[in-house]
């Protein structure tokens, strides 16, 4: 007979497959149920309650923002906002990833570059990026540049330092081996070390995306004409919880999917990356 309790509690627990799925869904289900009950109670007291809109109201908000054209501009708001935001996020993160990668690898491989750049990057990584947002808006204007710069400055130091640490971890043997195979110094950096570090870069981007979203929404909230963050803060004035909730769920979904795609991309394209076996 199986030991009692071994399917859930304890360090030797081995939940069956079906139970694993149920366990994963349970917290989500719980939140939704609590929400519906709360909303129901509040609507019984006041049918025009705005703070906890009912599911049908949220459905209407979704219909209004995602499936019908705005009366004034003729755009589909959710699509327009999503495109505007993703463009900023993508540009900012890409710039940060590209420059952080090149700088990180070079710092890891060349002591001279490390001496020049690392202390500076360590220092600027301590600047709270949001605190210099006013400076960015003054210098770059309230258009796209300022927002992209904020995302860039907020994520770049972390990416550079993370890649630098990974580059330093590359065994000396690997580098000497490359040299004995006729690699030039540039060849070692760009043809041997960089390809090894690309999956590490993707992992770092995954971690930086959270910060990227934060800076995106913050900058959109302060000065913008479009974007997911802009919309949320705009409708806040009318207490439109239905639209806010719709947008938050949508943003979370995008972030989750982006993370998932990057994770799968590493697993499929770089199958060797998670194999800890030393070769």
């Amino acid at each position, binding site marked *: 007979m199986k030991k009692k309790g071994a399917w859930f509690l304890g360090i030797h627990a081995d939940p069956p497959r079906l139970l694993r799925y149920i366990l994963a869904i349970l917290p989500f289900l719980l939140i939704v149920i609590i929400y519906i009950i709360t909303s129901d109670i509040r609507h019984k007291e006041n049918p025009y309650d705005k703070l906890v809109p009912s599911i049908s109201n949220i459905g209407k908000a979704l219909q209004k923002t995602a499936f019908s054209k705005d009366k004034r501009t003729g755009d589909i708001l959710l699509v327009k906002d999503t495109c505007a935001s993703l463009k900023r996020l993508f540009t900012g993160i890409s710039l940060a990833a590209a420059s952080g990668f090149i700088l990180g690898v070079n710092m890891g491989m060349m002591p001279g570059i490390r001496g020049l750049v690392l202390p500076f990057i360590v220092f600027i990584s301590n600047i709270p990026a949001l605190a210099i947002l006013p400076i960015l808006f003054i210098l770059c204007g309230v258009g796209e540049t300022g927002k992209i710069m904020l995302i860039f400055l907020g994520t770049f130091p972390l990416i550079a330092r993370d890649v630098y640490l990974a580059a330093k971890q590359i065994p*000396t*043997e690997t580098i000497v081996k490359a040299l*004995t195979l*006729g690699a*030039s110094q540039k060849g070692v950096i760009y043809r041997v070390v960089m390809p090894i570090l690309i999956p590490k870069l993707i992992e770092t981007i995954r971690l930086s995306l959270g910060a990227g979203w934060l800076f995106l929404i913050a900058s959109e909230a302060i000065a913008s004409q479009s974007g997911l963050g802009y919309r949320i803060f705009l409708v806040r004035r009318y207490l439109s919880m239905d639209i806010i909730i719709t947008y938050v769920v949508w943003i979370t979904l995008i972030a989750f999917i982006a993370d998932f795609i990057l994770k799968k991309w590493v697993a499929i394209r770089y199958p060797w990356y998670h194999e800890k076996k030393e070769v």
Partner: protein
Amino acid sequence: MNNSTEYILYLKDVQKRYNDKIVLDDIDLAVSKGEFCTVVGPSGCGKSTLLRLILGQEQPSSGKILMTGKPIQLPSPDRGIVYQKYSLFPNLTILKNIMLGKELSLPFIGRRRAKKKIRNEAMHYLGDVGLTEHAEKYPYQLSGGMQQRVAIAQALIMKPKILMMDEPFGALDPGTRENMQLMILKLWEENRMTIFFVTHDLEEAVFLGTRILILSQFYLHESSDKSEVQNGARIVADYPLESFAPSSTKVKETAEFGKLIQKIRYEGFDPEYFQHAARFNLEHSDSFQTLKGE
């Protein structure tokens, strides 16, 4: 003494210090083409340091290291290396690992045709080490022994003047290890290679080598009567070994073989036994020694 340019490798009065600690002292060594040199010594005696000096990864504190008469600079393709681990690039398939050396030196023009040629050459070497069917796998998918075969092929394709090996079979199980020993002997014969093989396994050293170098810090300095273990390691013995037919490892069971190993253990590994520097066993025809004060 021969002219130093005739040797593949020529070290004279080489000393290596880290701050005040002398690791290697007064190393004199000449290696001829075609030699299978095995290097043994107590752990921490500086075998790997010597290897790094010859590779050019580190510079000697004093003395000179020449390769076919020219001073050694940084690591370069005329000295191949196979390590115990980290020899392979984890992100490349087996075939790409072997091709890499040749690809790195390709010019921009005519790449495609050249690549095809390199591919064929790599497959040839892959066949030599018996791994043709694993060409498209990644290193992590192979066993330790297979990985070392790839590492050897990867070094061989560059046709180095000397192949350096740093305990290449140290992490393998005994059966695999013997197979690898037979394979390297076969490759050494077929390709007429010069090999510099560092190991801590005396049996392996005697079985493989045509010449054994014992590196040890247990000896008597010529200028004093006390045993000074603080001295850097020196080559305390250097003599030719009988070469064994590379078809069988049976020879390891003979009494003669065992006696030789006992002798080596005594000469280099016994911290109670100190030979005087002037009486080292340097029977090999290439070996020479410059004593201090001469």
